[in-house]
């Protein structure tokens, strides 16, 4: 988002800090951490979080595909799922 960059073209410290705090708010531990915000730890948390999100997405996708495959095509449930997928 270019709006965040300063017009000089260099990126100021505050902008980076703002980005970092925003990232921190995304992480699940945000509230408890009480903005301890050591950048190193934050980045490490982000790494782990992204990995766990990956795992979760894979897991959910597997479950969904299993559900769909085991379902009867003409059942109302399948219809619902199809409509959801289409949306």
């Amino acid at each position, binding site marked *: 988002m270019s709006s965040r960059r300063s017009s000089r073209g260099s990126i100021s410290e505050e902008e980076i800090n703002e980005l970092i705090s*925003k990232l921190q708010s995304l992480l699940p531990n945000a509230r408890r951490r009480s903005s301890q915000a050591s950048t*190193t730890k934050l980045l490490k948390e*982000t790494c782990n979080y992204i990995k766990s999100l990956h795992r979760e997405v894979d897991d959910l996708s597997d479950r969904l595909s299993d559900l769909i495959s085991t379902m009867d095509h003409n*059942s109302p449930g399948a219809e619902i799922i199809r409509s959801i997928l289409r949306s």
Partner: protein
Amino acid sequence: MAQCGGDVSRHRKAHLETVESLCQGLLDDDKCRAMFGYLQEWPDLGSMCYNASLGEPPLAPEASNGSGGSGGGFKKRRPDACLDTKGESNSVCKRPRGKQQPCDPDQMAAAAAAAAVGKGKPERARAGAKKKAELALPKDSPATSASTVTAGQKTDYIHVRARRGQATDSHSLAERVRRERISERMRYLQELVPGCNKVTGKAGMLDEIINYVQSLQKQVEFLSMKIAASNPVVNFDIVEDLFGRQLSQVACNPAALAAMAMPIGQVELSCLQMSPLPAGSPGFGLEMFVNSNPYSPAPGGAMSVPAGASVESCLDVGGHKSVVFDMVCGFPAAAFLNLWVVFCTLLQVHGAAGWDIGSQSLFTGFDAPFQSVQSE
């Protein structure tokens, strides 16, 4: 990467120590050249040595060394080096552990030349640390040999070599270590997040990372909702055969469960509570699971709960048929309404008398919590 590099560097260190001893009494170029020949196998070291002894700038070892930490550099061992004796560089006492130090020949040259030649700040090598010129300048000062005596000392704390021209106090050194760690993490994140390679600069990468995390969260949420929405309706067929079904199947289908309870006549329905998934998951995909024992007239009794669901059940005692759906979190309302349509159909189909009364309270009981959910 640090691991393999460490091994190599340790190996090199052993050799270096031998060379060091050679250097100690060394004052003339002849011996240096001999040493240089010995060191031929390590081009970076060789060039450094060459450079140090002959005072000529090396031929771009920087490029080769900068290519990778594992390739070129060797670990700095001794904090003090000939460089320090000049007083221009920093007295070092630290070096990063397990890191490869790419050669920084400019620095060597500067030190070796002992002149204002090397004014230009050396390029920031990979980790920003420079290689120590252990063999440099034997001829320049006798103090050098003394400094080499301390060779081989290894301490347990992180050693960082301060660069020439930078402050040498512990704060900036620690700061630099911290910065190196941060950049290392950022690199790792860069690998993890697709599309980060095109953006350079901290802020751009942070931007990308934030967007990626948000999109992943949305994806998880969406998938969970899909699954949760599909679950209640999937086993609708089960309703037809109320007695023969497995408990586990029923568990997935609250409608079936309620229907199963009908013929039994005991209308103790569990109060279905839908709780969100464990706190760890970002998107609160709701899984609806029913926890109740339809076969038992007695109240209470938890059924087999499918794994992964956090369910609470409470029975409404007193023969009063009421189902309270306490929805803690938002649930796809459309799917739920669908469920209720099914349920109503069931009631009509089976026509259990006892249920007629129940259905009224069912609906009334249902509406209230549902309203509250909608407001969430």
